[in-house]
C-alpha cells in the first residue's frame, strides 16, 4: 500500500529522516516507536504530504506522491495535537469534513462519535472542550470515513482509561477489516495487543522493522516493552529512554491501576 524509498529529510544540519526504506501492506498494524525527536511524526507528515522530503520517494498504491492531494481521500489521520477553530461547533466540524470529502452516507462510520458520546456535545463550541475531549473528536474524525489507511499519532495520550479502551477496541476492529494502520506511541503496553509490526526509529534512522512474532522469538520476551528494551539495551541505542519506558510500565502494572 505504502512504499518508502530512500526517504531523507533534513532540518538545517540535523537529519530528521535518514535514508528510510520500508514497505507497508494491508492488514498490518505498524507501531512507529523511538525516543522523542527520532523522526516519527516527520515520517507520518511526509506520508501525508505535509513535510516535503529532501530526497527519496513515497508511493501510495504504487503511485508516487508528488503534490496531487487525491490519495489522501483514502487516509484517516489523527494528529498528535488537535486544535480547532475556537467558535466552530463540534457538529459543524464533522459536517464540514463530510462536505469536503463527499463520502456517501453508507461509508460513514459514526461508531466512535456514538461511543464517545460526542453527539450530545454537537452544539458546543470547540474552545469549551477539554484536551481529552478534543482528542476524542480527533479520533472520531480519523475513523469517520472508513478509509483503507489509518494514521494515528499518539492516539491514547490524554485519553481516560475507558475512552482509551474504546479506541483500542475500535483499532482492533478496523485491523480485522484488513486495513493498514500506522500508530506512534510511547505507551508500549497499549501497542502490545494491537500491533503486528514494529518500526524503530532513532535519530532519523530506521534501526529495525520487524514482525512482532519474530521480535518475541529473538528476545524471548512476550511483552513488547521488555522485548524492545532487550534489543535496545543489547545494542545500546538510548538507555535513558528505556529506563523511562520501564517507569511507565511499572506504573501501569501497579495495583492502583489494576481493574
Amino acid at each position: 500500500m505504502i512504499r518508502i524509498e530512500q526517504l531523507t529529510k533534513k532540518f538545517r544540519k540535523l537529519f530528521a529522516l535518514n535514508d528510510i526504506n520500508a514497505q507497508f501492506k494491508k492488514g498490518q498494524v505498524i507501531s512507529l516507536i523511538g525516543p522523542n525527536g527520532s523522526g516519527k511524526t516527520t515520517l507520518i507528515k511526509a506520508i501525508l504530504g505535509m513535510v516535503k522530503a529532501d530526497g527519496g520517494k513515497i508511493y501510495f498504491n504504487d503511485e508516487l506522491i508528488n503534490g496531487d492531494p487525491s490519495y489522501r481521500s483514502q487516509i484517516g489521520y489523527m494528529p498528535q495535537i488537535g486544535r480547532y477553530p475556537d467558535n466552530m461547533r463540534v457538529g459543524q466540524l464533522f459536517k464540514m469534513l463530510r462536505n469536503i470529502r463527499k463520502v456517501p452516507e453508507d461509508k460513514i462510520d459514526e461508531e466512535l462519535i456514538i461511543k464517545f458520546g460526542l453527539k450530545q456535545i454537537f452544539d458546543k463550541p470547540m474552545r469549551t472542550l477539554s484536551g481529552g475531549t478534543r482528542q476524542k473528536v480527533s479520533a472520531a474524525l480519523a475513523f469517520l470515513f472508513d478509509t483503507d489507511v489509518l494514521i494515528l499519532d499518539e492516539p491514547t495520550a490524554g485519553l481516560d482509561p475507558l475512552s482509551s479502551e474504546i479506541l483500542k477496541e475500535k483499532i482492533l476492529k478496523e485491523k480485522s477489516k484488513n486495513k493498514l494502520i500506522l500508530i506512534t506511541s510511547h505507551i508500549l503496553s497499549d501497542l502490545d495487543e494491537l500491533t503486528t509490526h514494529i518500526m524503530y526509529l532513532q535519530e532519523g534512522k530506521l534501526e529495525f522493522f520487524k514482525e512482532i512474532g519474530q521480535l518475541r522469538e529473538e528476545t524471548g520476551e512476550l511483552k513488547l516493552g521488555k522485548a524492545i528494551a532487550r534489543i535496545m539495551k543489547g545494542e545500546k541505542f538510548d538507555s535513558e529512554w528505556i529506563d523511562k519506558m520501564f517507569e511507565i510500565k511499572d506504573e501501569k502494572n501497579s495495583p492502583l491501576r489494576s481493574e
Partner: protein
Amino acid sequence: MLKLSKYVFYDIVRSKVILAYTAFLFLVSFSLFNMEENSSKAILSLLNIILIVVPLISMIFTTIHYYNSYEFIELMLSQPMSRRKILLSEYGGVSLSLVSSFLIGVGIPVLLYSPDNVGFSLLFTGTSLTLVFTSLAFLTSVKARDKARGIGFALLLWFYFALIYDGLILLVLFNFSDYPLEKATLVLSALNPIDLGRISIMLKMDVSALMGYTGALYKDFFGSGSGILFTVGIMLLWILLPLWWALRIFRKKDL
C-alpha cells in the same frame, strides 16, 4: 473551496474581536458624522482614522488568526485538498469577515449621512486596504515560523506603510524641491496602498483646491477615467502579488 471559507467565516464572525472591531468602527463613524456639521469634514476625519486603524487591525487579526489555525490547517492538509485551495479558502474567510465588518461599521453610517461620490470612494478605499493588508499578513505569517516573529513582522510592515513611508517621501520632496516632482510622486504614491487611498479620496473633496499646482495636476489625473482605472489596478496588484507570493511559499513549506 467555498465550503471551507464558509466555515472559517462562521468561526470568525462569532469571535468577540471582530464584533468589537465592527462596533468600534460604527461608533466612530456615527459620532463623527454627528459631531461635524459638514459631512465632508466628517469624512476627512473618518478617513484619517480608517487609514491607520483598518490596516493595523487587518494585519494583526489575520496574523493571530493564522497562527491559531495552524493545527487546523494541518488537519485540512491531511484531507484530500490542495494547499492552494486551503490557503485561498483561509484568505477568503478572513478577508470576507473583515470586509463585512468594515462595510457594516463604516458603510451604514456613510450611506446614511453621505451617500455620494466621496462616501463611496471611502468605502472602496477601506475595502481594498482591508484586502491588501490581509494579503500582506498572510505573506508574513506564511514566511515566519513562530507567532512572535510573525506579529512583529506584521507590525513593522504596518509601521512602514502608515508612518515611515510618508517621512521618506517628505525627505525626497524636500531634497529635490528644485526639480519638477509631480510625476515622480505619483509613482511613489502607487508604492504605498495607504497613500494611494488617501490621495484618491482627498482629490474628490474640496480640500484639494488648497494643494496648489500639484493638487490640480493630481485632480486632473485621479479624476479622469484612466486615473480611476490606475487606482483600482494598483490596489488589485497590491492584493494579488503578496497573496501569490504567499501561495508560492506555502506550497513548498513544511508544516
